[in-house]
């Protein structure tokens, strides 16, 4: 999912596996998934299904994924996907990581199963730490990229630096290595010629985690916005999410901020979407983009209350419910219109001051 493969590859390579990290999902991946999944499953289900098929075709024997306890449907996906794939005649094993608190024994079982090299426990712990460090590092690079995109003098330069440093990170072995790559990476970003004083818009992104993080399933909307002179702030990053959800349950400021509008945990990221919208508004953002897979009920509920947030806190928003039918050109037109409108509002405000 998204640009995070170096972190996961790191752990599994050290456990003694040959890691097949699938290519980033392409149109072919999506078609494979869409062809084999039931119609009303969401885009993340279909995209990951397509990815599994590609991986199995490339010779994968074990699929590793995560579970969950809902109320989002994704908690059931691994089981259903495995069943669909077996029906197609693939032979494989699927290892599903459930939340630790719900199933501690399952975690141990999974670790034993995957620990091919009989790596020692302390080494395992340090592997996980290294992976988390890589995650945090990738997110930091992403932040730099999103800051530079609207400001760089030659379009595309920050993107090139980003691809380079993420690749360098993949090769980093020890914690010191990772730290060195991180510092060099930040250095490289600083060297990108840019105009820090250029007026830019700030737009927050909320929504369901998979479509927010995976550019292939959100039409590269971050890049699209960046190139239109918008600094993009996603409300979810994988390192942040891991810290919140693996260790503790969601109990963050977003939840408190959502309370006046959405009084219950509705599953998925619905509540966070609303809460983060409120937080973005308080931080003076110019606009908000909601990204969700088609038929994602938590996000539909969020979409239902966002107009109230928007009205109360004067934060314009635009929603994208993404499926295989969503075309890039159509989305671009809507995004352009949205950005134009934000600029007009900005100018009107400045005129008023």
């Amino acid at each position, binding site marked *: 999912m998204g640009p995070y493969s170096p972190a996961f590859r790191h752990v599994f390579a050290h456990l003694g596996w040959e890691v097949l990290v699938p290519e980033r999902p392409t149109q072919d991946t999506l078609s494979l998934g869409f062809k084999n999944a039931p119609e009303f499953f969401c885009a993340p289900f279909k995209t990951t299904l397509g990815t599994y098929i590609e991986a199995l075709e490339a010779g994968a024997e074990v699929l590793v994924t995560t579970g969950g306890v809902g*109320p989002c449907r994704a908690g059931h996906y691994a089981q259903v996907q495995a069943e669909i794939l077996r029906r197609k005649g693939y032979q494989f094993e699927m290892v599903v990581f459930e939340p630790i608190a719900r199933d501690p024994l399952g975690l141990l079982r999974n670790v034993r199963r995957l620990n091919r090299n009989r790596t020692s426990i302390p080494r395992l712990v340090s592997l996980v730490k290294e992976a988390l460090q890589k995650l945090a590092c990738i997110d930091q690079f992403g932040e730099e990229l999103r800051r530079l995109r609207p400001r760089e003098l030659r379009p595309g330069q920050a993107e090139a630096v980003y691809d380079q440093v993420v690749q360098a990170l993949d090769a980093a072995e020890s914690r010191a290595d990772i730290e060195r790559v991180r510092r060099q990476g930040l250095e490289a970003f600083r060297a990108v010629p840019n105009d820090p004083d250029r007026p830019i818009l700030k737009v927050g992104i909320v929504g369901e985690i998979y479509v927010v993080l995976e550019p292939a399933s959100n039409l590269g909307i971050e890049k699209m916005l960046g190139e239109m002179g918008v600094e993009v702030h996603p409300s979810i990053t994988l390192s942040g999410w891991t810290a919140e959800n693996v260790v503790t349950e969601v109990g963050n400021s977003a939840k408190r901020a959502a309370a006046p509008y959405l009084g219950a945990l509705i599953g998925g990221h619905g509540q966070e979407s609303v809460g983060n919208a409120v937080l973005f508004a308080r931080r003076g953002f110019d606009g908000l983009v909601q990204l969700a897979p088609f038929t994602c009920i938590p996000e539909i509920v969020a979409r239902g209350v966002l107009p109230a947030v928007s009205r109360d806190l004067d934060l314009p928003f635009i929603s994208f419910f993404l499926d295989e039918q969503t075309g890039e050109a159509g989305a671009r037109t809507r995004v352009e219109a949205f950005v134009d409108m934000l600029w007009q509002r900005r100018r009107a405000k400045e005129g008023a001051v």
Partner: protein
Amino acid sequence: MRVGLPRTLWYFTYAAFWRTFFTGLGAEVVTSPPTTRQTLDSGIAACVSEACLPLKIYFGHVIELADRVDRLFVPRLVSVDGRRVFCPKFLGLPDLVRHSGLKLPPLLDVTIDRRRGPLFLWRACRHLGQSLGASSPRIVRAFLAASRAQRAHTARLAAGALPAGATPPSWPRGRLTAEANPPIRVALLGYPYLIFDEYVNLGLLKKLRALNVEYRTVETVPERLLRKQNRFFQKRPFWRYSDLVARAGYHFLGPGWSEVDGVVHVTAFACGPDALVDKLLELEGERKQRPYLNITLDEQSGEAGYVTRLEAFVDTVRRRVVTGSG
């Protein structure tokens, strides 16, 4: 004081309780009329366009009630058994209605959640009663009467009766003759707000009768039999109604097969949980080599398409029964 109950979603399961409760408190209970094209159209206009069909219909019913009542009862239905929760739209219902921008009477909003303790329902009722200014003894009496009414209602459903408020299917004309078309039995699975709403399902119950088909709903399966169905791969569905439908499906496709000749699963357009349950049941039907049909209801309401599929399915099942290959 007039309290409005929208005739959809949980209505067919729990209306007996809430009607009796509010009446016991001295309120007049107003139910929205059965779904019509107009209900659906006004719901579609008022609701998020990406929403599932049942949510749009719910909004239609809310609009029907808007100028007829003093309070609109929109509970946050979270969990009644402490384990399964209702689907996210039930969980966000008061928020969705409150922030819809519609001009509505004040909401009677209370959270129903078994995980808050065994007295969850009584606490919710006390809260409601107090907010309506009723005295404590009166609330207790209303609560007890409502509990009795609910038990009776559940028993009626279990016996195969239609819930109060559902349109009774009139005996259709042009019924097939029993000699040429011996009666068959199907399990009719689906959420109560699809099965018992004649407009939404395009008169499905009536059509089944016309085809000489008897049906068994989810509600007619005793709970102890449902509880036995525990083999959803490794995990049970998280949502209450979906869990019941999936269990009933496994029951009828498995140990309960002697009671039916085929299984029909009625789902709603863009319903997330349904997609999951449907896939599970479809796989189970395939594995057991037993006839399984999915019917998806949508807001376009074109009945020709589904009638053809239903008739073909019924023919197939009947042939299996007649030739004894079931």
